[in-house]
């Protein structure tokens, strides 16, 4: 049985009210989203601003209530949980937010931040919490003595490590990572991605990884769901999706990523126009206003998400007669052999420097 089963999730927000409080306009943030997630696996929700990916992640945690649809976690319907059971569920499912500057309380020390969940869920007796905090810091590659410091003393990457340690404190089964690396510099981003993968391998956690960056997603996901305006337009095993994206929107997203290869020759799917608003989504297929393959049927009839035998599902009327995606895929062997060797040498040598490399001297914030 899957750890998490989401079915027909709908969430509309009221965007405008009349004088008497009657709803006049709705933002259709999430409109019929279904997926499931096995224990220990990573599902990536991918899409651009306003596609509903963050709303889905909040619905899954029941931080907001859905208008329709069910979320089943470990076989239990989340809507049936009473306050006590919901609290117990919160121990099983945690979230890491995008902005490590806003998600840590500036008035609490790292030790307090990490022992709060332990106390809330009564996991570790008060006398042993210090020990557990040290363990947690060690887990995310930080020195235990940093527990006495405040968040402002740390850099963005270190704060994100603290946020990860806080999520792990309650030993959850599921962690939602909402753009956990978007606010970080490239070199720090790779540290956090490596850490998340490493922790998953060791602790068999399931992740829902919310991101707009397909390159990051390719690195971490087992399964990918591409969202556009509140709906999933394509979902498949990560390997299958990256080897052969089917929906025109997935292809556009993939081909829009700038590659670090100056001579990379590949066709682009350039989307015209702006992302339509979820306040007034286009009729029929919600992608039809930007789709290069649009036909009349797309304007009137919304396509269903249809899966083939391998579990690769696509919501597109024209999925059968689209050209091959090979032209937009990046060629393999993007790095020169010399560079591959150098990168390998670089990584090998730094590994010897310690697992996560957060040293004593690095605890002081750097001057911007």
């Amino acid at each position: 049985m899957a750890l998490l089963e989401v079915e027909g999730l709908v969430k509309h927000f009221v965007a405008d009210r009349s004088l008497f409080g009657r709803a006049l306009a709705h933002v259709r943030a999430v409109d019929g989203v279904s997926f499931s997630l096995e224990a220990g696996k990573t599902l990536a929700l991918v899409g651009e601003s306003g596609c509903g990916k963050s709303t889905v992640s909040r619905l899954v945690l029941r931080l907001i209530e859905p208008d329709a649809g069910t979320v089943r976690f470990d076989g239990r319907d989340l809507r049936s949980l009473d306050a006590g059971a919901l609290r117990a569920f919160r121990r099983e499912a945690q979230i890491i937010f995008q902005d490590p500057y806003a998600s840590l309380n500036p008035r609490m020390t790292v030790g307090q931040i990490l022992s709060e969940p332990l106390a809330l869920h009564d996991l570790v007796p008060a006398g042993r919490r210090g020990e557990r905090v040290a363990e947690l810091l060690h887990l995310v590659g930080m020195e235990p003595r940093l527990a006495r410091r405040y968040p402002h003393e740390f850099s963005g990457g270190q704060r994100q490590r603290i946020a990860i340690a806080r999520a792990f404190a309650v030993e959850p089964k599921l962690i939602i990572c909402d753009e956990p690396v978007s606010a970080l510099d490239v070199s720090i981003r790779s540290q956090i991605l490596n850490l998340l993968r490493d922790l998953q391998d060791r602790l068999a956690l399931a992740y829902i990884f919310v991101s707009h960056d397909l390159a990051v997603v390719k690195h971490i996901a087992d399964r990918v769901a591409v969202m556009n305006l509140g709906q999933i337009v394509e979902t498949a095993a990560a390997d299958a999706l990256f080897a052969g994206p089917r929906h025109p929107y997935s292809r556009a997203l993939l081909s829009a990523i700038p590659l670090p290869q100056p001579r990379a020759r590949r066709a682009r799917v350039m989307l015209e126009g702006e992302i339509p608003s979820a306040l007034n989504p286009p009729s029929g297929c919600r992608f039809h206003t930007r789709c290069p393959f649009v036909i009349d049927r797309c304007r009137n009839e919304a396509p269903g998400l249809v899966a083939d035998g391998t579990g690769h599902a696509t919501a597109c009327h024209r999925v059968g007669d689209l050209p091959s995606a090979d032209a937009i895929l990046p060629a393999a062997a993007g790095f020169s052999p010399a560079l591959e060797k150098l990168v390998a040498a670089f990584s090998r040598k730094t590994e010897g420097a310690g697992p996560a490399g957060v040293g004593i001297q690095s605890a002081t914030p750097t001057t911007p």
Partner: protein
Amino acid sequence: MSAGPLVEIRDLRIRFHGDDGRVTHAVDSVDLSVANGATLGLVGESGCGKSVTSLAIMGLLPKQSAEITGAIRFDGLDLLQTPDQTLRDLRGNRLAMIFQEPMTSLNPSFTIGDQIIETILRHRGGSARSARGRAIELLRRVHIPSPERRIDEYPHKLSGGMRQRVMIAMALACDPQLLIADEPTTALDVTLQAQILELMRELKAASGAAIILITHDLGVVAEVCDEVAVMYAGEIVERAPVDEMFSAPQHPYTVGLLGSIPRLDHRAEQLATIEGMVPNMAQPPAGCRFAARCPFVQDACTSAPPPLVEVTPGHLSRCIRAPLERLVS
């Protein structure tokens, strides 16, 4: 006009004097040049000094706290010695800049038309009517649909991608010779980023302006730049034509940056990471500033600051162990 580069920066140093007497070395001995029609990518992570360098070119650093030495030559004129009045005539005219945040760089209480027309009238004069005509033309050039109607809209009515187009239209209003774009696509979604990058390529081909593109995204650099300068801790650590930089980087920091990008063409088990942190720029280290994080470090690296030397023709590196191929063969 002279045959030399359009912009030539020599030994630029910028220090910030804080209220508490602390001095931060934001930029140290930066040498750069950009030719007419060329695009230079200035790459580095937060705090490496890339934005400060661009603000110095524009003359936008606060006079009270920033101490700037060296020379910034623009078309034969030393911008650091130029009086404010002349600088004001240059900015928005022959020098233009696009910022990262299109949400905050437009004035919310004027229509986008007013803001573009103001620039045109300030530098070019002429009638309000002809300026309006030109503003509409500019909006059309940056692919804003129905510009005749859009010109009278306020910024809040436009999406992020549209606002960035308006910013670009405004920067192009007086056909600048130099355009500085500071992370122009960072705040945008990927499909919009692709549109804006395409637009920049188009404009570069059409106008022949020199562009300095500041970014942390090496993918963006590979797509639009001719030459790249990598900055680390206030210094340029590597400078090369773009193909060279991506095929045979000569500074370990660049290698680390390239290795830490998640790639679409293959899935690495582990991404490269650059361990440790950037040095505290109130007291920069004596030797190589990257030494503490460098896997190829030797004793000699920490004793004296390494010079920026030519490793292969046109390819400069601030690493005494370059050429790096030697280390892996």
